């Protein structure tokens, strides 16, 4: 075969493959964006007339707003706790020589997926029950924070490692106390990393269904991810109007947060000082 034709064909094939892939991922998004505005939503993504009735129904639903608020409390609380604790731990692990430090980190990272995984739900439930933290949001925040911390420490340690020690030494020679070195120099320099980890933690918690579903009993304390699961009509049919509209509203805060943080810091998954 002519090499030019072959190049052409392989290129056409590549683009067709890429297009199919895009369509595969874009269709659900299209459904997410279009369905809330259709009068009679189904599984199909079609725009047959535009209406805002679905949003009215959503506003009238008594569970919707409290659940979004609960989601914000759980995700915000966990993200803040994760960033604060991970930053301190990452700083310590980066600067203090601990024998077997890297092994410890890797072990924690591997085990962390278990903490918030299905297998650990029964022991976690029992533990929180003993602690009196069942059906309390603080319990959920603690469990989720515990599950996210190792990965967060791992990511942030990379940022701290890239902060030259001379920054801290310079501050020390000028008389800064350890907490001042941390507040004035280290934390501001790793702020992009903290922002990245914060958004990451928030998204993880925002989309988590299992942990709040198991650990919270009272429906008024459930976050949006769990409440969405209850949107079925009496006949067991999913209420597409409510689900699709809620899904759109539910995704807005995360997208907004992403845009704001990206604008401010730019996302970085690795430490590095721009020259």
């Amino acid at each position, binding site marked *: 075969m002519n090499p030019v034709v072959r190049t052409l064909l392989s290129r056409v094939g590549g683009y067709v493959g890429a297009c199919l892939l895009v369509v595969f991922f874009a269709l659900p998004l299209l459904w997410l964006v279009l369905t809330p505005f259709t009068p009679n939503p189904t599984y199909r993504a079609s725009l047959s007339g535009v209406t805002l009735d679905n949003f009215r129904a959503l506003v009238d639903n008594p569970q919707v707003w409290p659940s979004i608020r609960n989601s914000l409390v759980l995700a915000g609380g966990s993200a803040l706790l994760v960033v604060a604790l991970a930053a301190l731990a990452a700083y310590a692990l980066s600067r203090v020589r601990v024998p077997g430090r890297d092994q410890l980190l890797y072990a924690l990272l591997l085990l962390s997926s278990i903490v918030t995984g299905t297998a650990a739900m029964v022991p976690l439930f029992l533990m929180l029950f003993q602690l009196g933290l069942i059906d309390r949001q603080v319990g959920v925040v603690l469990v989720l924070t515990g599950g996210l911390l190792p990965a967060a420490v791992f990511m942030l340690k990379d940022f701290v490692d890239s902060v030259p020690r001379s920054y801290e030494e310079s*501050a020390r*020679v*000028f*008389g800064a106390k350890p907490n001042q070195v941390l507040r004035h120099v280290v934390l501001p320099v790793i702020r992009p990393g903290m922002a990245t980890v914060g958004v990451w933690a928030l998204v993880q918690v925002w989309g988590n269904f299992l942990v709040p579903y198991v650990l919270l009993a009272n429906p008024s304390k459930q976050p949006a991810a769990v409440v969405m699961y209850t949107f079925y009509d009496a006949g067991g049919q999913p209420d597409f109007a409510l689900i699709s509209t809620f899904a759109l509203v539910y995704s807005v805060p995360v997208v907004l947060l992403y845009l704001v943080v990206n604008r401010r810091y730019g996302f970085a998954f690795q430490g590095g000082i721009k020259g």
Partner: protein
Amino acid sequence: MATVELTDLVTQYPNGVRGVDGVDLAIADGEFFALLGPSGCGKTTLLRTLAGLEGATEGRVRIGERDVTALEPGERDVAMVFQDYALFPHMTVSENIAYPLRIQKVARGEREERARESADPLSLGALLERRPAQLSGGQQQRVALARAIACHPQVFLFDEPLSNLDARLRLEARTFLKQLQRRLGVTTVFVTHDQAEALAMSDRMAVMEAGRIRQVGTPREVFQRPASLFVANFIGATPMNLLEGAVRGGRIDLGGVSVPLPAGHSGLGDGERVVWGVRPEYVATAGDGVPADEVVEGEVSAVENLGVTVLVTVAVGGRDGEEGVEVRAVLPEDDEPEVGARLRLHPQTARVLLYRADDDGALVEP
């Protein structure tokens, strides 16, 4: 302003390596003092011990009237400029310069004023609102200096302050640093691995090797009379002629060639092994008036252009199967010889130094 005094100072790392191994040093008030040595000789460790960033294992550090050995870096009243300048990337130039004052809890208005005061003489006045990443290397260095100046310390510590600048800028910064230090009159200790920098800038200097000080003196003393073979090798833009030989009949036999014994060394016994040393700058072409027994003659084996001078390597001796020696001379550009030509050289006997031919290689005093 203060003196700096180090007594029996030892700084040992946790792995047992002694970065500083028994250093005694007194630096006078207002002196511009250089710590010079090859990499790994402990000069930076010594500076960091002075700053308090490394703890002294043994010995004392005194700054002025105070014994600061056990004090935190921030309590020693010193300011340090790091090799990478260590400017905080998230602060403006003004905030960087005023950072020491922020630690001292000076009010914001006064901080800004004093930052401006230290910045203006270093021509940073127009850059105060920029961030370090927006500055050139030379500007960053001046910000680091301004920050050190702003806290009015008793001693400045500079760790390789010029090594991150390009060659041209380094020469300008050298002059600038020297003028600045003179104007401020603050005792300054700076670390460098560049012997030319140490010779050019310092009032006095210490040459270090393996954690110990090998020689202390003014640049002229160290250049003219290196106290050991190590120092002799290390100092000087062109490598010193160092040839091993033996004293024989009032002269020194270098193997294939003999040179006069310098004055005052008649006490050396016949057959004693010594190293004959003379800087290439102190070797000239022999004119007609030079006594024949002071001339070293050989064949030019290499000519290197140094600008207004040339470095000529002459192979001397080597007849009758004997291995010859090489003598280097720095000659004016007009006297540049051809490679392969015969050349008569005249080492200035008054500038010749003799060293013991043992491991210490100490200078043989007349």
